[in-house]
């Protein structure tokens, strides 16, 4: 039977929202206080949802140790205590949580083969969150 498992992780990082194609005044208008030249930081909460049939022998969709190990190595070690703006994936893209969400989805989607990735959801603060499922289909 098909079930969905969601695991929550945390990392802390800094960023600045700024795009060189805009003027300084436009950047300030579009990004507001997120455009502060010195940057600022968040405690990001990441929810990773995987799905699949529950294995009759183990009672699991996939072994949590494997998912935790993959996310720890490929996501948390990459982003925790980093300045997102200096990472290669944000050399050309603004490190909004939308772009971060898509990037983390693609990291897991392309590297973790032990379960189907349904969704990545990121809480940037308690007041806002972002979700990406790799498709335009409505979420459950």
């Amino acid at each position, binding site marked *: *039977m098909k079930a969905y498992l969601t*695991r*929550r992780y945390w990392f802390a990082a800094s960023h600045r929202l700024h795009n060189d194609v805009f003027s300084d005044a436009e950047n300030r208008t579009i990004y507001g206080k997120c455009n502060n030249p010195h940057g600022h930081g968040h405690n990001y909460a990441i929810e990773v949802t995987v799905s699949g049939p529950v294995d009759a022998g183990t009672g699991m969709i996939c072994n949590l140790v494997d998912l935790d190990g993959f996310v720890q190595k490929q996501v948390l070690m990459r982003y925790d205590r980093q300045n997102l703006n200096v990472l290669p994936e944000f050399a050309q893209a603004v490190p909004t949580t939308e772009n971060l969400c898509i990037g983390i989805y693609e990291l897991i989607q392309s590297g973790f083969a032990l379960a189907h990735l349904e969704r990545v959801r990121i809480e940037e603060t308690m007041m806002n969150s972002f979700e990406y499922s790799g498709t335009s289909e409505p979420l459950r």
Partner: protein
Amino acid sequence: MNSIVYLTRKAEFAASHFYHNPDFTPEENQRIFGKCNNPNGHGHNYLLEVTVKGQVDPRTGFVVDLKQLKEVMSKEVLDAMDHRFLNKEVPEFLKSIPTTENLAIAIWQRMAPKLKTAELHRVRVYETQDLFVDFYGEA
């Protein structure tokens, strides 16, 4: 109006469990289940969210008789699982492993036939704040 509305009710229960499959060798059990294989068990405060769906009854304004939903949750889940050792006291887990996945499926199977006025949409079981499983009754 034919609007479908979803209603979610929460409940908490505390239970102990451990993960072990007698078909596996002791080494395999240890490798697959790690510290969850401790035969003396360990426990969690499980948070259950049951979501039902339906059309709003024009006379009552309700999508479901909340009293009946609460009774079914109480009788089928809490009475059976709260302050229990899942492996030994809940019949489903004499033969299957009480993972959060199987727990969500067992709760669905216990509740779905008992609900008279509502259609079950989702069973969500939080094992910890950082781990939960959703089951939608899919094959």
